[in-house]
């Protein structure tokens, strides 16, 4: 379902251009609004739809296999921490869903340098950051070289 942009809603802010993983949302030079310049490289990931502050971007299913008349709309609300979906079938039936997207405030992650610096012994060990505590088990599991054998295992 490649994306498209409604002329009357888009204000040319460029959020979709900035976020699109496929680099297919660009600003039209004449209209100064966004458009999908390469629909056959659109994954329907909805990154642009979710990022659009004007709700100006929608999708129309891939022409090769999606009959017209459907609609799948998303509303992602960061402050509320939810995403809401409204599906409309070709025959008019509807379904609605809502899911949480995050349980902590945006920007609240503690960076790795905010933890106490590890010592030289830890650097030489096989443990990664926050281990073994973050594993919730007492010790990082390990093997010894003699446990590895060549040949077919059935």
């Amino acid at each position, binding site marked *: 379902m490649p994306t498209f942009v409604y002329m009357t809603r888009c204000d040319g802010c460029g959020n979709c251009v900035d976020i699109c993983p496929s680099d297919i949302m660009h600003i039209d030079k004449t209209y100064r609004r966004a458009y999908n310049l390469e629909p056959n490289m659109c994954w329907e990931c909805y990154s642009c739809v979710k990022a659009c502050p004007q709700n100006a971007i929608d999708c129309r299913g891939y022409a090769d296999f999606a009959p017209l008349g459907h609609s799948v709309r998303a509303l992602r609300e960061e402050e509320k921490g939810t995403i809401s979906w409204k599906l409309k079938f070709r025959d008019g039936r509807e379904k609605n869903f809502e899911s949480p997207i995050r*349980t902590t405030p945006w920007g609240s992650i503690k960076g790795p340098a905010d933890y106490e610096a590890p010592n030289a012994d830890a650097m030489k060990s096989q443990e990664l950051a926050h281990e073994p505590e973050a594993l919730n088990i007492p010790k990082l599991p390990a093997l010894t070289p003699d446990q*590895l054998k060549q040949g077919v295992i059935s």
Partner: protein
Amino acid sequence: MSSSPGKKIIHVDSDILVIGGGMAGCGAAYESRYWGRDKNIVVVEKANIERSGAVAQGLYAINCYMGMQWDENQPEDHVRYARNDLMGLVREDLGYDIARHVDSSVHKFEEWGLPMMRDPETGRYMREGKWQIMIHGESYKPIVAEAARKAATEVYNRIMVTHLLLDKNNANRVAGAVGFNVRTGDFYVFRSKAVIIGAGGASHIFKPRAVGEGMGRTWYAPWSSGSAYALPILAGAKMTQMENRIVLTRFKDGYGPVGAYFLHLKTYTENAYGEEYESTWYEHTKELVGEYVDHLPVPTCLRNHAFLEEMKAGRGPIRMVTKEAFQDPHKETVGWENFLGMTIGQAIVWASQNIDPKYINPELTTSEPYVMGSHATCSGAWASGPEDYAPSEYQWGYNRMMTVDGLFGAGDTIGGSAHKFSSGSFTEGRIAGKAAVQYVDDLGNDQPEVSEEEFMNLKDVVFKPMENYEVGRNEIVAGTVSPSYLLPIHGLQRLEKIMDEYVGGISSHYTTNEPLLTRGLELLEMLKEDMHHMGAEDLHQLQRTWELNHRILASESVTHHTMFRQETRWPGYYYRGDHPKLDDDDWHCFTLSRRNPESGDWEMEKAPVYHIVD
């Protein structure tokens, strides 16, 4: 866009350069910073790390979690599982290493704010299957990207890395990378003591089933352009198991995932006449692969094989029986949210075709092949294993270092470590990140040097397609047909056709043989020559051109590996018509390749497979 792409050169120096800011790259950045407080850590990404890589759209499950805290699984169990699924051939040392660390990554994701589903009775993470836990992962990638941004010294978005740079004084040591900014056209020269490749696997090397607008709805992201393979191949790194492409059984057209359907919703498949069909093909499959047919769970490729045989027998379509499960409102919600969380396109296909799985059993299909290192497949670079137990043949330096000094990898980049998925890719990035810090510390004053001649030559090569277009464009009135240049889409479609017809794509029922592969290589050679005549109208098309170059290199590698392995190890992924059976006597081994960077010739060899006992 700048008026003269390539005019400005920007130099960026770092201790550790992370190429690709997906799950693996974010893990690498995080861990490098934890251990290397004083290090200059740079992440470079062709899109925007907030929504880049295969997890850009979100995920509804984390497919690699041990649950060691509840004694649900141990790392050894995961090794046995991956080995079984890949028909005996995985780097068990690498797989064990990811499995022993992966729980700590997942616990961090939860602490960072990723909504995990929990079993109301036990309070544990809700299991979808033995290895999978269920999440509300719409913002999985933005959350992980936040952690990576806090770790990195600098993140450079919208820069397409085209080549690695090698040390002026040591041709087998990495010294950085070059690329261009797809917005400004500035040429970037990254000098770095260590490089970690966290780039993506390859979609769009085999012709997809949909070739109109729907070609964008590949199962793996269309932006996964095989840079994970092309960058190390160009630098002369050894690759492994590149023939082990993956074919997915998925819901038709949208390629919506089936994992939650099989494992959590307990739906099952049947043929057009409502019959179970997998057992029909038991004896036939046993003739091809022997006792592997009795392994449980049935390997992914063998389930595909039964599906394909049933379709060829004329009893398609194969359908997923959903009508029973979807009577339960909880299961119905899970079924839909599963798609909305990670494959919205499938929900659209069903809405558009009036398919409500509560009343209609939806069709399944098998996808075109993909090359990747993180799913039920293990193509990628040949990497050094963990210091504490990897056998000597697998250990020549730092953990996850390739056969080029200072060049590390994780996720789709690293071969042999199947079934790592999102959490395992992030974890492998962490492993590589810590090792790279150690490598840089040990270098001391013995630092790599980039050659100005090398990067200036590369600058000309990188921007040549724009020059080709500018010169050739005036020959013609309008349109896309020129006698002087090809557009990136032309090259892409030729590549997909070659791979499809000669290397085992959908149109040949995933079947190839030595004469077909030989011809395929001849045609790939001509395509490579034609790549000197690519025309790029703008920087976006220049990005597509370089993605295509990377896809072609990955494809060439796949073709050489497929030729070298004279057996059919994974029926259902691909078939060698001239060697239709699994052959453990000669091929219970890894295939290794190296492309000589000087001559472009490929050298193939075998490497031993080591198993953890039992």
